[in-house]
């Protein structure tokens, strides 16, 4: 197949980033020369296409009323999850909020396990109990539903890395809306005070639910909000800039210099969640302008074709492969069985297994569940 990785394409190459990729605060910005390989660039393209295809599948299943409840899609923001993963190792840690499908996928979760989770299936990544907002996999601590609550948790994870002497960083991600939560500033202070290797990453998609950033935030330059913590604003619609910035941030934090605050300037094409059409607080023109001029996937495709790394035919092959692979996994998720309709499934994992109380009450006396037979 045309898109198979060729060994000669693992040779290091250097590409130039756009001049406006970074805006530093109290620190020197990373280099605009990105070291990468042709195969990595192709993989970035493939991964972003896969995340978008998966989110579109979730969108469709939601509209078909197969996925119920809350569902926040990252369509438009793919470059952040993909670029970040390419800059770190599986032993680095990530924790984020509820717009988490792309991160779960990049951290190693299968499309099937993610879509099955959305559908409430037992084979879902959290047994169908977490749903859209709660997805966990190795070195990925979710998927958290409370705005801002994951940020101090990230500080604890980062401290664990430091305490255990691991050469790993932690990315604690939040949105521009969550940036105004008090606990975010509590976490900043603890991290700086204790020199925790952590990157506080604000994904600024311009709107906290339905409120524009400048109507909620006194300072919309979120990378400066650490005040006493150096910061970096990154073009979050450019996966290459994201990769370069995250690699730089990992090196900085792991070298013992303490935390960083980063802002990824990005954009979500859809509403805040599926119940928000996303058109009442911004114009359709704005959304379509971003889609046609700033799109991360299209942007990388154009670059790779300009640089003769991908031909038009190869692009089509990758897109076809991604479509087939994602669609097959989505179909498998849809075919996966719903959880057994038993109290054992309902009441498991409230406490660690073996330490549960003797019983938990159900809807009626007859449904009282006894952990021990």
């Amino acid at each position, binding site marked *: 197949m045309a898109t198979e990785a060729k060994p000669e394409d693992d040779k290091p190459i250097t590409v130039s980033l756009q001049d406006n990729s970074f805006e530093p605060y109290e620190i020197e910005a990373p280099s605009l020369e990105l070291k990468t390989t042709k195969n990595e660039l192709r993989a970035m393209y493939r991964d972003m296409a896969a995340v978008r295809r998966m989110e579109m599948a979730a969108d469709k299943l939601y509209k078909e009323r197969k996925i119920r409840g809350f569902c926040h899609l990252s369509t438009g923001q793919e470059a952040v999850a993909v670029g970040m993963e390419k800059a770190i190792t599986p032993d680095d*840690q990530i*924790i984020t909020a509820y717009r988490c499908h792309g991160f779960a996928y990049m951290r190693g979760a299968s499309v099937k396990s993610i879509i099955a989770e959305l559908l409430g299936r037992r084979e879902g*990544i*959290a*047994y169908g*109990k*977490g749903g859209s907002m*709660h997805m*966990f996999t190795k070195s990925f*601590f*979710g*998927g*958290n*539903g*409370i705005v801002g*609550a994951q*940020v*101090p*948790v*990230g*500080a*604890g*994870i*980062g*401290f*664990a*890395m430091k*305490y*255990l002497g691991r050469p790993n960083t932690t990315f604690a991600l939040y949105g521009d809306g969550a940036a105004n939560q*008090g*606990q975010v500033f*509590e*976490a900043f*202070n*603890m991290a700086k*005070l*204790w020199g925790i290797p952590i990157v506080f990453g604000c994904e600024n998609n311009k709107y906290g639910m339905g409120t524009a950033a400048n109507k909620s935030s006194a300072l919309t330059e979120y990378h400066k909000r650490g005040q006493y913590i150096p910061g970096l604003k990154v073009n979050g619609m450019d996966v290459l800039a994201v990769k370069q910035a995250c690699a730089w941030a990992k090196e900085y934090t792991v070298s013992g210099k303490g935390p960083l605050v980063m802002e990824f300037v990005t954009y979500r094409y859809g509403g805040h969640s599926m119940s928000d059409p996303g058109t009442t607080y911004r114009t359709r023109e704005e959304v379509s302008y971003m889609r046609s001029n700033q799109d991360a996937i299209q942007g990388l495709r154009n670059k790779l074709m300009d640089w003769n790394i991908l031909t038009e035919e190869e692009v089509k092959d990758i897109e076809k492969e991604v479509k087939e692979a994602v669609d097959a996994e989505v179909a498998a998720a849809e075919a996966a069985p719903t959880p057994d309709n038993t109290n054992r499934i309902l009441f*498991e*994992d*409230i*406490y*660690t*297994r073996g*330490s549960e*109380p*003797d019983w*938990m009450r159900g809807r009626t*006396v007859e449904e009282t569940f006894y952990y021990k037979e």
Partner: protein
Amino acid sequence: MRRKAVSSILSQVPRVQTASSRPLAPILAITPASRRYSSHPPNAKLNQQVQFNTSTYLSHTTSTSLANPELPSSIRTSGNTSKLNLYQAINSALSTALSTDERAILFGEDVAFGGVFRCSSNLLDRFGPDRVFNTPLNELGIIGFGIGYASHSHANTAIAEIQFGDYVFPAFDQIVNEAAKYRYRGASEFNCGGLTIRMPVMGVGHGALYHSQSPEAFFAHVPGLKVVVPRGPVQAKGLLLQSIRERNPVIFMEPKILYRAAVEEVPVDDFTLPLEKAEVLAKGSDITVISYGTPLYTVELAAKAAKEMLGVSVEVIDLRTVYPWDKETVFESVKKTGRCIIVHEAPRGGGLGGEIAACIQESCFLNLEAPVGRVTGWDVHMGLIFEQFNVPDVVRVFDTIKKTMDY
């Protein structure tokens, strides 16, 4: 402002329960002694001061301490004990936990200095600043941080201190929405089971609105948490060690008036006591009285008076773990006695007493001879001068025993 409040509380935690040793005694000297304690008048028949040094709910000798059947047999046969008050027993448990689990860390406001109640004295010297450290004054951040540390791998143990239970509310979100639900929403593998949150609770005589609350019922409403309240030093050491080692998040509430007042012979070695298991402190046949923490000693006096004045045999149960609580022990006792009252300092509305009473009527309805009684704090804030009226006193417990017997 809060700092000041803390230090003034610290200085007033009773070392010995005599008025003369109180730092404020000279200032108060112009007040006639008979007016000083509204509910402990000098000629009171029932509302006597609790005498912790003679309470049968505490082990005053090595032999009674080691006779505890819940202790491991090695300690029962050859263990040493030392005389510790409750804060020293907490210190012993923390020290044991830190020395037996190198991943355990201890943090909170001022804990490196020993904490306002001295529970973590000398631990910084012994275990170093990487493991015992002060945090900023940010309860939400403290608990979030603790959840993150505990969640990193199943072995990580985070012991967080909230300086007073009254300060826990900024952290309510992290406890209820993050800690308690972590395992359930994370398909078991992701959890913060190694997290233990310690906090001083209950009245101290003069703590007023923000240093004397009993917030246990807020947490006893949340599946995924365990809530533990010890009554004395032996219990505090054994239950705290079990709570720290328990792979579920535990809220450990320490009755602050007992820090110095309750003194016991505590086994020196490492031991744990079981969670979710109540303890029958006194066998009786006529009525069951259920309580936990400080009010148990009030119950002891009321039970003694009921025996002497009414000839009533009272069975006293220390719930110890207030969520999930030991239904088996409670139901067995109530089925035997047919009467029951519940005593706690927290306000009545939505309190644990209501929940326990409801469960008793569901499971023991045909055995009941009288409605389940409740002696609780009133549904009012803990006003400084009214604290003694708000917490259950001996008269109120005695009166409810009498009414329940006469029903």
